[in-house]
């Protein structure tokens, strides 16, 4: 194991942040978690990570995460000068997980949290040239099809939504800081879902809501291509890549790592859904033919409020190269359809799929802001 490091994880209570924090704590590092409103860290397996409030005089102890309440959208995270200085002086690494990842929010929200939040995190790193691990997204590639290399960023692509665009801007800022001398590395997860072995996930959000609406027939048709694919990455793999990049930073410095998993084709979705008797299998309509008007009134509501936020992912034909990331942690070898089946099985077991859908407004409640 590497030496014990003092590590700040921003967005430490989010899905990726909590799992990464849990791993780093288990590895014996001294971990500080920046959280917005949440007072505890719950790992993906549902277990609480032992925590205590951060103080400047906190003893460096293993097995406990020290929590700071802060807001990445505010200068210096809204911390007082003493805390800021004390914190910056103590850090060996910063893992910047804080982000808003749900779709359909106003552009200014993405700007505040994903872009400005990154600027503020970089300011902390620049105080003492602290090595900086930035969590981006594989989908900074936007809508372009084909094989996406890890060293590609701004190639004039068009974006599917404001989230992708904001993560691209944030990544450009990180790269600028790196060019100015800050030791930095970028990790790009794709769509983060349940663990590779069991499909377990702490919370059912984002893509899971789409799966639920489609499987219940609440949206029976979407614009899509059978050969389009969405990359789903197990949360434990993302945490493993982040942990590896943090611990082995000298090797990861200046690199971009695709923390990606199994490409799941829309055909896989159709065929796998067909294995579940209670599921409806969505129709994929030619995008030139599809219009929400072809849906019933209720379906149209679900489509416009949720599914439409994702629908350009049903048309993309992207494959993410992970040759560089594989040198740190090998990409899961599970086939897309097998992994999707595992995710669905877990969601069924947990009662999320196959159960009655909450009333529309509850199902569509905007997700928590501020933490990945």
């Amino acid at each position, binding site marked *: 194991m590497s030496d014990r490091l003092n590590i700040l994880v921003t967005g430490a209570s989010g899905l990726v942040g909590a799992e990464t924090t849990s791993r780093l704590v288990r590895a014996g590092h001294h971990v500080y978690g920046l959280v917005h409103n949440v007072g505890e860290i719950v790992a993906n397996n549902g277990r609480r990570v032992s925590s205590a409030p951060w103080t400047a005089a906190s003893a460096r102890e293993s097995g406990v995460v020290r929590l700071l309440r802060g807001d990445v959208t505010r200068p210096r995270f809204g911390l007082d000068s003493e805390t800021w200085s004390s914190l910056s002086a103590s850090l060996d690494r910063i893992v910047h997980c804080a982000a808003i990842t749900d779709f359909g929010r106003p552009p200014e929200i993405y700007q505040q949290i994903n872009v400005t939040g990154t600027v503020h995190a970089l300011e902390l790193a620049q105080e003492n040239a602290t090595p900086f691990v930035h969590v981006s997204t594989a989908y900074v590639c936007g809508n372009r099809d084909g094989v996406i290399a890890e060293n590609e960023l701004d190639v004039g692509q068009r974006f599917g939504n404001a989230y992708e665009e904001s993560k691209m801007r944030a990544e450009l800022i990180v790269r600028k800081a790196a060019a100015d001398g800050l030791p930095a590395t970028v990790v790009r997860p794709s769509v983060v879902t349940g663990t590779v072995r069991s499909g377990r996930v702490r919370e059912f959000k984002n893509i899971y809501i789409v799966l639920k609406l489609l499987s219940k027939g609440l949206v029976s048709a979407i614009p899509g291509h059978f050969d389009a694919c969405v990359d789903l990455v197990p949360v434990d793999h993302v945490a493993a890549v982040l942990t590896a990049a943090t611990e082995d930073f000298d090797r990861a410095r200046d690199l971009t790592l695709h923390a990606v998993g199994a490409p799941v084709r829309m055909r896989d979705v159709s065929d796998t859904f*067909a294995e579940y*008797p209670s599921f409806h299998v969505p129709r994929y*309509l030619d995008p030139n033919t599809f219009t929400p008007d072809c849906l019933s009134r209720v379906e149209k509501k679900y489509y416009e409020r949720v599914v439409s936020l994702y629908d350009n992912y049903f048309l993309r034909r992207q494959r993410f190269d992970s040759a560089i990331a594989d040198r740190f942690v090998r990409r899961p070898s599970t086939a897309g359809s097998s992994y999707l089946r595992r995710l669905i099985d877990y969601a069924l077991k947990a009662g999320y799929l*196959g159960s009655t859908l909450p009333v529309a407004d509850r199902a569509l409640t905007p997700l928590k802001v501020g933490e990945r």
Partner: protein
Amino acid sequence: MPTMPSIFFIDGRRVEIRTRTIRQVTEHLKAVAAFVGSTPRRIVRLDEHLLNRCQRFLRGHIVRNSQVIHGIRKHLALGDFATVMTHWWGEHARQSARYAVCMLALGQAEVAAVWAKASLLQAAKSFAARAGETYLEPKWISLQLHRMDDDERVRRYWEVTDSSRHHGSSADHAMRCISLVHDLGVRGCENTPQKLLVDRTSDVTTWRIGDRVHLVRNKEDVFVLGQAAAVVWRHMVWQRPVATIRQAAVTAGVEQAGTIIAVLARYGLIQVTWQGTAITPVLPMASPGGTVTPRPAAVDPPLLDLRGATASSSDAIDLVAVPARRFGAAAMAMVWGNIMVENAIEDMRGALDRQQWRVAELTARRAVDGGLRALLSACGVNPLPPDAELVHRGDMVGPWAREILSAAEQLHRVGVSDPVQGKALLERVNYFVSLIRAVCGADSFPASFDSASNWQTTLDISYDWLRLGAYLDAAIPIEEARDLLSSGGAQPYIAPGASRGLATAGGTQ
């Protein structure tokens, strides 16, 4: 060396001689010895014929060369063999009893009683093997137990299996058998239905076409479900208790849900597990286990219409008479044939409006050919003969379609040279189409180009079949259909922005 015994008739007696080399017998014994100490789940995989050979060799009377025989027998001790047989029969008994518990939970008391009785016999064989009675054939169980008749459980065995003493129901009898199985030393198969969970079997998928539910098994067989069976199927959620599923379906109005679930399990469309472990009932020395395939459902022609096959009754789980890929391909060809009919009729109307008589004749023939494609496809014919031959292929559909083929033949010969003839031709084509529609699902196929909603229905049916076709890698006429589907059925002779046709209707493009 022969594996069948040689039969001789000597002095009026039949004599069986089974020959094996020393190497063969040694390998048999070693193969079984390798399982000593294994779990019952592993031991039960041992082949019954292998065990039988070992039993015969170990327990046979030595006529000569006893030193050689004893030397070989050292490869598998009698005690170890008895332990293996105890577990082997015990595991079979456990599986049979679990299946009986499952059938009880589904209200299938008669079947439950059959399997509970089988389990009891297997448990008795296990019980006997524990006492060193390792003979495999069940027919000797009475003599084996007779040698242990001082045991109270043997007395109960005869009580429970004596058919003259059965006074209770089949369910009661099944439960008495299961109770005694436990007392004979076989655990893990008590009457605890809450341990029974439904689960998927590999390669069974559900495809709904319109309101009809089809199941595809192993990408080979298609089953069509009747209405009640479809309701039960829709209630299946993997890894939920079978009793919960049954109750939910009963609450949804299907009283006979238990029977339907039992059939689904029998056909291998679902499996019922014991807390996640597959239940695999087998009758050793009697019949193979595993799933069952019923005879194909007998239906009057045609075989399918635009919404797929038709079930013979509400409870039915009918096997369709054509294999899955051909089923999907024929259905797609039928959809496309109907679209072709609609397309041609629209072209024909346009040609008649413009007094383009030769164009009208050709489009009429195209409509007829599209109809014949649909007709043959509805009968399961796939691949189709070339269009030029279609009208002569009555032998492929049977005498019931004589009127349709006669109408088609006449339409192929009709000429048009004035408006009156044109109108007559259109009427005859429309009549022909009505005959085709009666075969292919009557009103289920819309006049695709009449309105946006009709076109949407066409698209929905087409995309339903496309999903199944993609899954089966079936031959689908998609290349031919794609342009039409994606253009929304816009007709080349209609000017952009005109009110007719779907290029401007309903916003579905």
